[in-house]
């Protein structure tokens, strides 16, 4: 299946959770926030949140800005 990850197409195996995606990207333990289809997914729920074909996933972090 395919999702949109940070605005780009991203291919995934089926039966993948948001936590799996974060781990695959090497972001486990990093200070990030995840949004799926414009809804925040709390860190505590990433492992119980399955991804579906066509999901729009945003993963953000803090950067310098004024």
């Amino acid at each position, binding site marked *: 299946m395919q999702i949109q990850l940070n605005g780009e197409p991203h291919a995934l195996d089926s039966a993948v959770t948001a936590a799996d995606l974060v781990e695959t*990207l090497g*972001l486990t333990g990093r200070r990030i926030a995840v949004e799926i289809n414009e809804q*925040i997914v709390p860190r505590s729920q990433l492992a119980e949140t399955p991804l579906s074909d066509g999901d729009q996933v945003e993963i953000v972090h*803090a*950067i310098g*800005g004024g």
Partner: protein
Amino acid sequence: MTQQFNDSPLTLAGQTFHSRLLVGTGKYKDMQETGEAIAASGAEIVTFAVRRTNLGQDAEGPNLLDVVPPSRYTLLPNTAGCYTAKDAVRTCRLARELLDGHKLVKLEVLGDETTLYPNVVETLKAAETLLADGFDVMVYTSDDPIVARELEAMGCCAIMPLGSLIGSGHGIQNPHNVRLIVEQSSVPVLVDAGIGTASDAAMAMELGCDGVLLNSAIAHAREPLRMARAMQLAVQAGRDAFLAGRMPRRQSAEPSSPFAGRINS
């Protein structure tokens, strides 16, 4: 012996702060300079932006929150780069998740890329949604006192009019409006945007502002660390000058030395 002068702390959404200088984290040469400049500024509140994580590259690179740790600073996520109320609200909710339930945010909704002027229509919409969602909203806005009054009535915890355009360094272009906003407001007023050098920051404080938020003036100085200290001192000097009360302006000269007892040929 140095005399101690009393001042009340800056209170924002129930938290108190001794520094009235708030700083941004953008435009520095590297993370080390970011951390050092912010430390040199004495700021307790530090604003940052929220952006998509770079994927597949530099995952182990330095993280902003390593040089401005939440344990040491009050972090103020901002909505810089948002042009709609919807994007600003999404960004604040992401920031709240990023910082484990943190409620204090700096709302800015911009009008266009040339001026980065606040879009007050979208700002009002976003403020309404965020306040209903439990956020403490410090709001970047124009120097329009009527808009400022509306934002305060809605429940924003700080009103932050621009001095001049973001990143322009043109200082405070309409001090009369800033003073009007200060005089009518019951919540803290901070000049946010446009500060170019120390005298601009001092002017904001002399107008009676409760604080100053700046970024480029330090980050783009030739020596950012020295300018960070200059800004810290300028904010303190301006605050003291405001509290001390300036002398009246006169139309003619008045000698500082007594008239009597002059030698006279």
